[in-house]
């Protein structure tokens, strides 16, 4: 089985086994409430904001850069959305566009400091964490700005109907299959693989299972738009990282910056673009979070989001030393932590204990990964 699935898949599935164990545990302790479609949809919704932030965290950590500012940046984006729509009655579409632009600008600002001034990203984003939050507080005087117009709030609370959601999943799966078959045929034509069937089946299977699970989940109430947004962002990020030259360069820079430079890669430029993408993620995450909360709360919106995002990435197998990490892994990491929160809440475990448990899980996950890698290296 190891040979057939390949090492990567097996690594990912260790994490899946861990989630399965946790889910079964909660299923028993909550008398069957945990694994209902209703609760799982809620879980996906609760995980969505961390997932969005974790995607961009992976893309940065892979190049050995960190982003500690995402929580504050997201709060500032929320302020932009809320101020424009609530105080100035701007149309929601314009407010969203302005929010995305603000996010990209923040990413560009931090990217400049890192690539042009040579300040470590840890410091640049630590500073960002402080002043983005500070600016948010100053701009709103520390008060909550609400309520948002309905069309914006619907983004977070709305559902896509079951039929349409399932059709969408089927369509996505069909497109993927078409691409994979085309890719495998081309590989055969160029003589790099011999048989198309097994190659396609192997890479297709996890997606087919994912789509089936998605359809089952959607079959009752449909799927929240926010969850679709996460799925779309993750697929886009995965394609960028695995299937574009830019993505290969990201991994190369993290794996060996000097080798990347000496092979003609403009390291500074690539990292800067990486920060622009992180900025775009601020925009998207900020709009999503603000819509979900229903307004901008400068003091608490996105608090500790950076820690959750980095934790999710690390649990999902991203290496802190760069060069290794998968977007889908980070989603599973976010799901694992979300499951703990959700399950313990169902069991009425007080919040303080929940945080303690999450810390322990982070430590365990990284230790287990180290152990496995050390064994793999022998």
């Amino acid at each position, binding site marked *: 089985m190891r040979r057939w699935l390949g090492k990567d898949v097996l690594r990912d599935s260790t994490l899946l086994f861990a989630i399965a164990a946790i889910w079964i545990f909660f299923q028993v302790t909550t008398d069957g409430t945990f694994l209902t479609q209703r609760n799982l949809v809620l879980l996906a919704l609760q995980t969505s904001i961390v997932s969005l932030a974790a995607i961009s965290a992976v893309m940065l950590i892979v190049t050995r850069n960190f982003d500690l500012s995402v929580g504050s940046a997201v709060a500032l984006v929320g302020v932009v959305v809320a101020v424009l729509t609530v105080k100035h009655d701007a149309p929601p579409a314009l407010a969203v566009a302005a929010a995305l632009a603000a996010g990209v600008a923040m990413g560009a600002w931090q990217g400049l400091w890192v690539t042009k001034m040579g300040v470590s990203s840890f410091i640049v984003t630590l500073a960002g964490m402080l002043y983005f939050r500070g600016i948010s507080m100053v701009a709103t005087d520390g008060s909550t700005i609400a309520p948002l117009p309905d069309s914006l709030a619907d983004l977070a609370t709305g559902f896509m109907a079951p039929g349409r959601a399932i059709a969408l999943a089927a369509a996505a799966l069909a497109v993927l299959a078409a691409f994979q078959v085309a890719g495998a045929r081309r590989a055969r034509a160029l*003589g790099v693989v011999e048989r198309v069937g097994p190659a396609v089946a192997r890479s297709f299977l996890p997606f087919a299972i994912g789509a089936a699970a998605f359809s089952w989940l959607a079959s009752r109430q449909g799927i929240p738009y926010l969850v679709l947004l996460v799925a779309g962002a993750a697929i886009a990020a995965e394609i960028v990282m695995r299937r*574009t030259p830019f993505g290969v*360069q990201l991994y*190369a820079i993290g*794996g060996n910056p000097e080798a*990347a430079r*000496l*092979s*003609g890669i403009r390291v500074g430029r690539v990292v800067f673009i990486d920060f622009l993408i992180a900025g775009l993620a601020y925009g998207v995450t900020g709009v999503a979070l603000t819509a979900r909360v229903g307004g901008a709360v400068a003091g608490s919106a996105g608090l500790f989001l950076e820690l959750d995002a980095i934790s999710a990435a690390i649990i999902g197998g991203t290496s802190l030393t760069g060069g290794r990490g998968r977007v889908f892994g980070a989603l599973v990491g976010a799901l694992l932590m979300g499951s703990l929160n959700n399950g313990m809440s169902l069991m009425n475990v007080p919040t303080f204990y929940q945080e303690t448990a999450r810390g322990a899980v982070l430590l365990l996950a990284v230790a287990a990964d180290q152990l496995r890698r050390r064994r793999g290296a022998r």
Partner: protein
Amino acid sequence: MTPSPLLTATGIVKRFPGVLALDRLDLTIHEGEIVALLGQNGAGKSTIMQILAGVHAHGSYEGTITMRGRPFTAATVGQARAQGIALVAQEVNVVGELSVAENMSLGAEPTRLGFLDGAARLARARAALAAFDVDVDPRAPMASLDLATQQLVSIAAALYKEGRLLDLLILDEPTAALTDKEAQRLFERVRALKERGVSCIFVSHRLAEVFTIADRVVVMRDGRAAGAWPARPDTRDEVVRAMLGGALGDEQRGTSAAPAPDDVALEVRGLVVRDAGGARRPLVDGLDLGVAKGEILGLFGLLGAGCNEAALALFGAWEGPVAGRVRVEGEEVRLRRPADAVARGIGLVAQDRRQSLVHEHTVAENIVMASLRDVTRRGFLDVAAMRRRAADYVSRLAIKVPSVDALVGTLSGGNQQKVQVARWLASGARILLLVDPTRGIDVGTRHEINALWRQLAADGHALLLVSSEAEELVDVCDRVLVLRNGALAGEIGRADLDEERLLRMAAGV
């Protein structure tokens, strides 16, 4: 008088998963004897050294080892050292921020009443440095010493860590990073140790030095001792043949067709390279050179002559100020960063493979790293085309890999070097800058790589070969420029090329 054996290893078998590293190896070391261990990469040299140094614990291998007639059973490096054996690795591992004395006692700090005993540490360091004749202030920061001196300090520390001299010192490629002069300094000390009864095993790929320093040469092949010879000039050919397993064809010296001089690929006028600090004397001071298509131009000089700096500057990879005019195929260009050079069809094969390859990436990914655009269709990476292209170069350059999906970190040094070459050929580079490309690569592979340079030149590439080894330049170059103190000291054509002439010109005697 026959010296008595210090150490006898009999029938040593060591297996790693899927590899038989040592296959019934027999080895004897006498008291006060200097033994050179030769063999191609993968012959098992490192494994036997690591067994003797306690890196591989007693019990993880078969066979018996006796030391002064008593069984040698070290399970750790510390136990091996207590029995009088220590290994000094090829790479110098020091903590630059700590002092020399602190480095020397790292992990074995002397204490009094549980507190660090700084005075004892200093005294011990002084004694060890004096015993190995290293003139260094033990209180100086390690980072203030040059690489060669750091290495001497490391050896002194290993020699004396137990508070007494070792019986057997094992040096893994001690001269790989040293100039000839520095290597001489090291060998003088090793000879002095021999007088005091200390034996030494060392590995080297430089045959010339092996025959000047060693008493005996042991050749390893496929995990066994292929033979042992006294180190005398008349045994040299036999040793080389034993190393290569009789596989070496007759010495092919390049018979390159004379390049048309008007077909200049790379032309440099008045190249000046300065240290990033700026103020000091230029490292390269007004160098002119031209490389024609189909030519292999050598660049030779002693350490500090500016050869490496010149090559890095021509690739846009030098960190400090660079001035001068560069023409690529007649067109004046500015090379401010490696990306500019790559865009002009220049490639750099660096001596430090760890610096230029991404070890945890696959062979295919490393090969296409400088030509990603060519394997991109409508903005997306064409994975099939990428693997196909990599497979082409793997077979063209005879790179030995299980598949293009193998990780580069798992390849041998020679094959990693070929991956670097493949990267530039794949990117369409017509000018290759080679900086000590065969450093640390065994003799057999070196021949193969030298043949590759000639083939590339015959295909019309222009090659600039910087090497610290005169032998290599004599083997492949059409012409060699010799630098001294950053300036041109002279030029030697193919017909007059020999090692002695190169060295004399470089040294200015």
